[in-house]
Protein backbone atom coordinates (compact mmCIF):
# COMPACT_ATOMS: atom_id res chain seq x y z
CA UNK A 1 0.00 0.00 0.00
CA UNK A 2 1.14 3.49 -0.76
CA UNK A 3 1.40 5.82 2.18
CA UNK A 4 1.60 9.46 1.35
CA UNK A 5 3.52 11.64 3.73
CA UNK A 6 1.99 14.84 2.40
CA UNK A 7 -1.38 16.40 3.17
CA UNK A 8 -4.08 16.50 0.50
CA UNK A 9 -3.48 20.19 -0.01
CA UNK A 10 0.23 19.65 -0.64
CA UNK A 11 -0.46 16.74 -2.95
CA UNK A 12 -2.95 18.80 -4.93
CA UNK A 13 -0.48 21.68 -5.22
CA UNK A 14 2.21 19.30 -6.48
CA UNK A 15 -0.29 17.79 -8.91
CA UNK A 16 -1.30 21.18 -10.27
CA UNK A 17 2.33 22.18 -10.63
CA UNK A 18 3.04 19.07 -12.67
CA UNK A 19 0.05 19.88 -14.89
CA UNK A 20 1.17 23.51 -15.28
CA UNK A 21 4.63 22.37 -16.31
CA UNK A 22 3.10 20.18 -19.04
CA UNK A 23 4.36 16.97 -17.47
CA UNK A 24 1.79 14.25 -18.08
CA UNK A 25 -0.16 12.61 -15.28
CA UNK A 26 0.23 8.82 -15.36
CA UNK A 27 -2.08 6.15 -13.89
CA UNK A 28 -0.21 5.59 -10.62
CA UNK A 29 0.35 9.28 -9.82
CA UNK A 30 -1.65 10.89 -7.07
CA UNK A 31 -4.56 12.82 -8.55
CA UNK A 32 -7.55 14.65 -7.08
CA UNK A 33 -10.57 12.39 -6.91
CA UNK A 34 -12.56 14.89 -8.97
CA UNK A 35 -9.88 14.80 -11.70
CA UNK A 36 -10.20 11.02 -11.86
CA UNK A 37 -14.00 11.17 -11.97
CA UNK A 38 -13.98 13.91 -14.57
CA UNK A 39 -11.62 11.89 -16.75
CA UNK A 40 -13.61 8.67 -16.41
CA UNK A 41 -16.73 10.57 -17.42
CA UNK A 42 -15.09 12.21 -20.41
CA UNK A 43 -13.07 9.24 -21.70
CA UNK A 44 -15.87 6.70 -21.32
CA UNK A 45 -18.29 9.09 -22.99
CA UNK A 46 -15.78 9.45 -25.81
CA UNK A 47 -15.39 5.64 -26.05
CA UNK A 48 -19.17 5.10 -26.12
CA UNK A 49 -19.42 7.70 -28.90
CA UNK A 50 -16.95 5.81 -31.08
CA UNK A 51 -18.87 2.58 -30.62
CA UNK A 52 -22.43 3.95 -30.92
CA UNK A 53 -21.21 5.97 -33.90
CA UNK A 54 -20.75 2.72 -35.81
CA UNK A 55 -24.52 2.30 -36.04
CA UNK A 56 -25.62 5.19 -38.27
CA UNK A 57 -22.89 4.43 -40.80
CA UNK A 58 -23.11 0.66 -40.42
CA UNK A 59 -26.71 1.13 -41.55
CA UNK A 60 -25.41 1.68 -45.12
CA UNK A 61 -22.70 -0.96 -45.43
CA UNK A 62 -24.92 -3.51 -47.16
CA UNK A 63 -26.32 -0.85 -49.48
CA UNK A 64 -23.13 0.93 -50.50
CA UNK A 65 -23.39 1.68 -54.24
CA UNK A 66 -20.10 0.01 -55.25
CA UNK A 67 -17.78 -2.64 -53.87
CA UNK A 68 -15.07 0.01 -53.45
CA UNK A 69 -17.34 2.22 -51.34
CA UNK A 70 -18.43 -0.79 -49.34
CA UNK A 71 -14.85 -1.74 -48.48
CA UNK A 72 -14.00 1.85 -47.56
CA UNK A 73 -17.03 2.15 -45.31
CA UNK A 74 -16.27 -1.19 -43.66
CA UNK A 75 -12.71 -0.08 -42.96
CA UNK A 76 -13.91 3.21 -41.51
CA UNK A 77 -16.48 1.61 -39.24
CA UNK A 78 -13.88 -0.92 -38.12
CA UNK A 79 -11.54 1.96 -37.25
CA UNK A 80 -14.25 3.42 -35.01
CA UNK A 81 -14.46 0.12 -33.14
CA UNK A 82 -10.70 0.35 -32.63
CA UNK A 83 -11.02 3.92 -31.37
CA UNK A 84 -13.57 2.73 -28.84
CA UNK A 85 -11.12 0.07 -27.66
CA UNK A 86 -8.19 2.47 -27.28
CA UNK A 87 -10.38 4.77 -25.21
CA UNK A 88 -11.91 2.06 -23.01
CA UNK A 89 -8.34 0.94 -22.37
CA UNK A 90 -7.33 4.47 -21.36
CA UNK A 91 -10.34 4.78 -19.01
CA UNK A 92 -9.57 1.41 -17.42
CA UNK A 93 -6.20 2.72 -16.24
CA UNK A 94 -8.22 4.96 -13.89
CA UNK A 95 -9.64 1.96 -12.03
CA UNK A 96 -13.01 1.56 -13.73
CA UNK A 97 -13.81 -1.73 -15.48
CA UNK A 98 -15.13 -2.20 -19.00
CA UNK A 99 -18.20 -3.91 -17.54
CA UNK A 100 -18.97 -0.93 -15.31
CA UNK A 101 -18.68 1.45 -18.23
CA UNK A 102 -20.96 -0.62 -20.48
CA UNK A 103 -23.45 -0.93 -17.66
CA UNK A 104 -23.45 2.83 -17.10
CA UNK A 105 -24.17 3.28 -20.80
CA UNK A 106 -27.04 0.79 -20.76
CA UNK A 107 -28.54 2.38 -17.67
CA UNK A 108 -28.35 5.84 -19.21
CA UNK A 109 -25.88 7.11 -16.61
CA UNK A 110 -23.15 7.58 -19.23
CA UNK A 111 -23.68 9.65 -22.34
CA UNK A 112 -22.31 9.53 -25.86
CA UNK A 113 -22.13 12.19 -28.56
CA UNK A 114 -25.68 13.26 -29.36
CA UNK A 115 -24.87 13.53 -33.08
CA UNK A 116 -25.33 9.76 -33.36
CA UNK A 117 -28.97 10.05 -32.32
CA UNK A 118 -29.83 11.37 -35.77
CA UNK A 119 -30.85 8.90 -38.50
CA UNK A 120 -28.93 8.23 -41.72
CA UNK A 121 -31.70 8.50 -44.30
CA UNK A 122 -29.75 8.43 -47.56
CA UNK A 123 -26.37 7.39 -48.92
CA UNK A 124 -25.35 11.06 -49.01
CA UNK A 125 -25.57 11.05 -45.20
CA UNK A 126 -22.61 8.68 -45.11
CA UNK A 127 -20.51 11.18 -47.06
CA UNK A 128 -21.65 14.12 -44.96
CA UNK A 129 -20.90 12.25 -41.74
CA UNK A 130 -17.37 11.44 -42.89
CA UNK A 131 -16.80 15.00 -44.01
CA UNK A 132 -18.57 17.06 -41.30
CA UNK A 133 -18.88 14.81 -38.28
CA UNK A 134 -15.41 13.30 -38.51
CA UNK A 135 -13.92 16.74 -39.24
CA UNK A 136 -15.58 18.14 -36.14
CA UNK A 137 -14.34 15.18 -34.12
CA UNK A 138 -10.83 15.72 -35.44
CA UNK A 139 -10.79 19.42 -34.50
CA UNK A 140 -11.62 18.36 -30.96
CA UNK A 141 -9.29 15.37 -30.89
CA UNK A 142 -6.29 17.31 -32.16
CA UNK A 143 -6.58 19.60 -29.15
CA UNK A 144 -6.96 16.57 -26.87
CA UNK A 145 -3.62 15.13 -28.01
CA UNK A 146 -2.22 17.59 -25.47
CA UNK A 147 -4.53 16.56 -22.65
CA UNK A 148 -2.80 16.21 -19.28
CA UNK A 149 -3.58 12.51 -18.72
CA UNK A 150 -0.93 10.36 -20.42
CA UNK A 151 -3.01 7.34 -21.52
CA UNK A 152 -5.77 9.60 -22.91
CA UNK A 153 -3.23 11.71 -24.77
CA UNK A 154 -1.58 8.64 -26.31
CA UNK A 155 -4.95 7.24 -27.39
CA UNK A 156 -5.77 10.58 -29.03
CA UNK A 157 -2.50 10.64 -30.95
CA UNK A 158 -3.16 7.17 -32.32
CA UNK A 159 -6.75 8.06 -33.18
CA UNK A 160 -5.85 11.29 -34.96
CA UNK A 161 -3.46 9.39 -37.23
CA UNK A 162 -6.35 7.22 -38.37
CA UNK A 163 -9.04 9.87 -38.62
CA UNK A 164 -7.80 11.83 -41.59
CA UNK A 165 -8.82 9.05 -43.97
CA UNK A 166 -12.34 9.29 -42.53
CA UNK A 167 -12.93 12.91 -43.43
CA UNK A 168 -11.20 12.58 -46.80
CA UNK A 169 -13.24 9.58 -47.91
CA UNK A 170 -16.42 11.46 -46.95
CA UNK A 171 -15.50 14.54 -48.94
CA UNK A 172 -14.32 12.45 -51.88
CA UNK A 173 -17.58 10.53 -52.13
CA UNK A 174 -19.58 13.77 -51.97
CA UNK A 175 -17.75 15.25 -54.96
CA UNK A 176 -19.50 13.15 -57.62
CA UNK A 177 -22.82 13.47 -55.80
CA UNK A 178 -22.62 17.24 -55.48
CA UNK A 179 -21.66 17.62 -59.13
CA UNK A 180 -23.97 14.86 -60.40
CA UNK A 181 -27.57 14.85 -61.64
CA UNK A 182 -30.05 17.31 -60.08
CA UNK A 183 -31.39 14.45 -57.96
CA UNK A 184 -27.93 13.57 -56.68
CA UNK A 185 -27.11 17.18 -55.93
CA UNK A 186 -30.41 17.56 -54.08
CA UNK A 187 -29.63 14.46 -52.06
CA UNK A 188 -26.26 15.87 -51.02
CA UNK A 189 -27.80 19.24 -50.15
CA UNK A 190 -30.54 17.57 -48.12
CA UNK A 191 -27.92 15.68 -46.11
CA UNK A 192 -26.02 18.93 -45.56
CA UNK A 193 -29.22 20.64 -44.39
CA UNK A 194 -29.93 17.95 -41.82
CA UNK A 195 -26.39 17.44 -40.46
CA UNK A 196 -24.97 20.97 -40.30
CA UNK A 197 -26.56 22.12 -37.06
CA UNK A 198 -26.22 18.84 -35.17
CA UNK A 199 -22.52 18.89 -36.14
CA UNK A 200 -22.09 22.37 -34.62
CA UNK A 201 -23.76 21.04 -31.47
CA UNK A 202 -21.04 18.39 -31.14
CA UNK A 203 -18.76 20.97 -29.55
CA UNK A 204 -21.15 21.30 -26.63
CA UNK A 205 -22.73 24.30 -24.88
CA UNK A 206 -21.30 27.80 -25.00
CA UNK A 207 -18.30 28.26 -22.72
CA UNK A 208 -20.46 30.40 -20.44
CA UNK A 209 -22.94 27.51 -19.96
CA UNK A 210 -20.59 24.57 -19.78
CA UNK A 211 -20.65 22.82 -16.40
CA UNK A 212 -17.37 20.98 -16.66
CA UNK A 213 -15.25 23.51 -18.49
CA UNK A 214 -13.47 25.65 -15.89
CA UNK A 215 -12.00 22.78 -13.89
CA UNK A 216 -11.23 20.80 -17.05
CA UNK A 217 -9.24 23.72 -18.41
CA UNK A 218 -7.37 24.27 -15.15
CA UNK A 219 -6.45 20.59 -15.05
CA UNK A 220 -5.69 20.69 -18.78
CA UNK A 221 -7.99 17.78 -19.48
CA UNK A 222 -9.46 20.10 -22.09
CA UNK A 223 -7.01 22.38 -23.85
CA UNK A 224 -9.34 24.61 -25.86
CA UNK A 225 -12.86 25.79 -25.17
CA UNK A 226 -16.04 24.60 -26.89
CA UNK A 227 -16.58 27.93 -28.64
CA UNK A 228 -12.99 28.17 -29.88
CA UNK A 229 -13.13 24.68 -31.35
CA UNK A 230 -16.52 25.34 -32.96
CA UNK A 231 -15.17 28.51 -34.58
CA UNK A 232 -12.18 26.62 -35.97
CA UNK A 233 -14.47 24.03 -37.47
CA UNK A 234 -16.71 26.62 -39.15
CA UNK A 235 -13.72 28.54 -40.52
CA UNK A 236 -12.15 25.46 -42.08
CA UNK A 237 -15.41 23.98 -43.40
CA UNK A 238 -17.00 26.95 -45.21
CA UNK A 239 -14.45 26.95 -48.09
CA UNK A 240 -14.87 23.18 -48.44
CA UNK A 241 -18.64 23.58 -48.76
CA UNK A 242 -18.06 26.29 -51.35
CA UNK A 243 -15.88 23.91 -53.32
CA UNK A 244 -18.67 21.33 -53.33
CA UNK A 245 -21.16 24.12 -54.12
CA UNK A 246 -23.34 23.00 -51.22
CA UNK A 247 -25.18 25.73 -49.31
CA UNK A 248 -24.71 25.93 -45.55
CA UNK A 249 -28.19 26.23 -44.02
CA UNK A 250 -27.47 29.34 -41.95
CA UNK A 251 -28.64 32.79 -43.17
CA UNK A 252 -26.38 34.48 -40.60
CA UNK A 253 -23.22 32.87 -41.82
CA UNK A 254 -20.81 35.45 -43.19
CA UNK A 255 -17.16 36.41 -43.14
CA UNK A 256 -16.26 38.97 -40.50
CA UNK A 257 -13.26 40.88 -41.76
CA UNK A 258 -12.59 42.49 -38.41
CA UNK A 259 -12.50 39.26 -36.43
CA UNK A 260 -10.87 37.26 -39.20
CA UNK A 261 -13.48 34.56 -38.66
CA UNK A 262 -16.90 33.57 -39.94
CA UNK A 263 -19.89 34.77 -37.94
CA UNK A 264 -22.66 32.21 -37.68
CA UNK A 265 -26.16 31.89 -36.29
CA UNK A 266 -27.31 30.64 -32.91
CA UNK A 267 -27.71 26.94 -32.32
CA UNK A 268 -31.14 25.65 -31.31
CA UNK A 269 -30.20 24.80 -27.74
CA UNK A 270 -33.62 23.39 -26.93
CA UNK A 271 -33.02 20.73 -29.56
CA UNK A 272 -29.51 20.14 -28.19
CA UNK A 273 -30.70 19.58 -24.63
CA UNK A 274 -33.64 17.44 -25.76
CA UNK A 275 -31.30 15.08 -27.63
CA UNK A 276 -28.76 15.03 -24.79
CA UNK A 277 -31.43 14.09 -22.30
CA UNK A 278 -32.69 11.18 -24.37
CA UNK A 279 -35.35 12.56 -26.69
CA UNK A 280 -33.55 12.60 -30.01
CA UNK A 281 -34.87 10.70 -33.01
CA UNK A 282 -32.81 7.56 -32.41
CA UNK A 283 -31.72 7.55 -28.75
CA UNK A 284 -33.75 4.49 -27.81
CA UNK A 285 -32.92 2.63 -31.01
CA UNK A 286 -29.18 3.19 -30.56
CA UNK A 287 -29.14 1.99 -26.96
CA UNK A 288 -31.43 -0.98 -27.68
CA UNK A 289 -29.19 -2.05 -30.54
CA UNK A 290 -26.09 -1.79 -28.38
CA UNK A 291 -27.68 -3.87 -25.62
CA UNK A 292 -28.89 -6.43 -28.14
CA UNK A 293 -25.46 -6.79 -29.73
CA UNK A 294 -23.94 -7.19 -26.28
CA UNK A 295 -26.38 -9.97 -25.41
CA UNK A 296 -26.03 -11.63 -28.81
CA UNK A 297 -22.28 -11.85 -28.22
CA UNK A 298 -22.69 -13.68 -24.93
CA UNK A 299 -22.46 -17.15 -26.51
CA UNK A 300 -19.11 -16.20 -28.05
CA UNK A 301 -17.74 -15.07 -24.71
CA UNK A 302 -19.12 -18.20 -23.10
CA UNK A 303 -17.49 -20.43 -25.72
CA UNK A 304 -14.16 -18.68 -25.17
CA UNK A 305 -14.46 -19.21 -21.46
CA UNK A 306 -15.30 -22.91 -21.86
CA UNK A 307 -12.41 -23.39 -24.27
CA UNK A 308 -9.96 -21.76 -21.91
CA UNK A 309 -11.19 -23.84 -18.95
CA UNK A 310 -10.81 -27.02 -20.98
CA UNK A 311 -7.36 -26.01 -22.15
CA UNK A 312 -6.19 -25.37 -18.61
CA UNK A 313 -7.53 -28.65 -17.27
CA UNK A 314 -5.73 -30.82 -19.85
Amino acid at each position, binding site marked *: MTEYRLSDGELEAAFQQRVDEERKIEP*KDWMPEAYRKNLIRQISQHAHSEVIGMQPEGNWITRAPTLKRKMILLAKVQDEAGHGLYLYGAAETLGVTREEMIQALHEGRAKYASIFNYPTLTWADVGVIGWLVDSAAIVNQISLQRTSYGPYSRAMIRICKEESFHQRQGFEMLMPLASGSPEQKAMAQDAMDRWWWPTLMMFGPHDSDSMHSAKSMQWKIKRRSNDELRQDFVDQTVPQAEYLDLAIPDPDLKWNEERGHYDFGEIDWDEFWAVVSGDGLCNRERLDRHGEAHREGEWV*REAMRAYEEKRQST
Partner: protein
Amino acid sequence: MKLPLYEVFVRSKRGLDHRHVGSLHAEDGGQALKLARDCYTRRGEGVSIWVVRSGDIVASQEEDAASFFDPSDDKPYRHATFYRLPPEVKNL
Protein backbone atom coordinates in the same frame (compact mmCIF):
# COMPACT_ATOMS: atom_id res chain seq x y z
CA MET B 1 -17.29 -11.90 -16.80
CA LYS B 2 -13.81 -10.42 -16.79
CA LEU B 3 -11.21 -11.27 -19.40
CA PRO B 4 -7.59 -10.88 -18.36
CA LEU B 5 -5.74 -7.77 -19.45
CA TYR B 6 -2.78 -7.99 -21.83
CA GLU B 7 -0.17 -5.37 -22.67
CA VAL B 8 0.74 -5.11 -26.33
CA PHE B 9 4.20 -4.38 -27.76
CA VAL B 10 4.77 -3.81 -31.47
CA ARG B 11 8.01 -3.83 -33.45
CA SER B 12 7.46 -1.45 -36.33
CA LYS B 13 10.28 -2.87 -38.43
CA ARG B 14 13.17 -5.28 -38.14
CA GLY B 15 16.09 -3.81 -36.24
CA LEU B 16 13.91 -1.67 -33.95
CA ASP B 17 12.72 -2.41 -30.43
CA HIS B 18 9.26 -3.60 -29.59
CA ARG B 19 7.38 -0.63 -28.17
CA HIS B 20 4.42 -0.59 -25.84
CA VAL B 21 1.33 0.53 -27.77
CA GLY B 22 -1.55 -0.20 -25.39
CA SER B 23 -3.55 -2.97 -23.82
CA LEU B 24 -6.55 -5.17 -24.46
CA HIS B 25 -8.60 -7.94 -22.88
CA ALA B 26 -8.37 -11.51 -24.17
CA GLU B 27 -8.93 -15.05 -22.99
CA ASP B 28 -5.43 -16.27 -23.77
CA GLY B 29 -2.20 -15.26 -25.45
CA GLY B 30 -3.18 -16.58 -28.86
CA GLN B 31 -6.38 -14.60 -28.88
CA ALA B 32 -4.61 -11.53 -27.52
CA LEU B 33 -2.20 -11.70 -30.49
CA LYS B 34 -5.02 -11.80 -33.04
CA LEU B 35 -6.92 -9.00 -31.35
CA ALA B 36 -3.73 -6.94 -31.10
CA ARG B 37 -3.15 -7.44 -34.82
CA ASP B 38 -6.67 -6.21 -35.64
CA CYS B 39 -6.57 -3.36 -33.15
CA TYR B 40 -3.05 -1.96 -33.43
CA THR B 41 -1.68 -2.95 -36.85
CA ARG B 42 -4.38 -2.27 -39.44
CA ARG B 43 -2.04 -0.14 -41.55
CA GLY B 44 1.25 -1.95 -41.56
CA GLU B 45 2.35 -0.53 -38.20
CA GLY B 46 4.23 -3.69 -37.27
CA VAL B 47 6.20 -6.77 -38.28
CA SER B 48 6.07 -8.45 -34.88
CA ILE B 49 3.85 -8.31 -31.80
CA TRP B 50 4.46 -9.35 -28.20
CA VAL B 51 1.64 -9.71 -25.73
CA VAL B 52 2.07 -10.27 -22.01
CA ARG B 53 -0.41 -10.61 -19.18
CA SER B 54 -0.47 -7.22 -17.41
CA GLY B 55 -0.45 -9.01 -14.08
CA ASP B 56 2.86 -10.66 -14.93
CA ILE B 57 4.70 -7.36 -15.28
CA VAL B 58 6.80 -6.40 -12.29
CA ALA B 59 7.07 -2.63 -12.17
CA SER B 60 9.00 -0.15 -10.08
CA GLN B 61 6.79 2.19 -8.09
CA GLU B 62 6.46 5.80 -9.23
CA GLU B 63 6.34 7.11 -5.70
CA ASP B 64 9.55 5.29 -4.80
CA ALA B 65 11.35 6.64 -7.84
CA ALA B 66 13.45 9.10 -5.84
CA SER B 67 15.04 6.50 -3.57
CA PHE B 68 14.95 3.70 -6.12
CA PHE B 69 17.00 5.59 -8.68
CA ASP B 70 19.01 7.48 -6.10
CA PRO B 71 22.14 5.26 -6.21
CA SER B 72 22.99 6.45 -9.72
CA ASP B 73 22.21 10.13 -9.09
CA ASP B 74 25.54 10.90 -7.39
CA LYS B 75 27.82 9.38 -9.99
CA PRO B 76 28.52 12.12 -12.49
CA TYR B 77 31.72 10.30 -13.50
CA ARG B 78 29.49 7.86 -15.40
CA HIS B 79 28.82 10.61 -17.92
CA ALA B 80 31.20 11.53 -20.70
CA THR B 81 30.75 15.24 -19.94
CA PHE B 82 32.43 14.74 -16.53
CA TYR B 83 35.84 14.57 -18.17
CA ARG B 84 37.46 17.79 -19.31
CA LEU B 85 40.01 17.33 -22.04
CA PRO B 86 42.14 19.92 -23.81
CA PRO B 87 40.51 21.21 -27.00
CA GLU B 88 43.42 20.13 -29.17
CA VAL B 89 42.74 16.47 -28.37
CA LYS B 90 40.41 15.18 -31.11
CA ASN B 91 38.14 12.19 -31.55
CA LEU B 92 37.55 11.51 -27.86
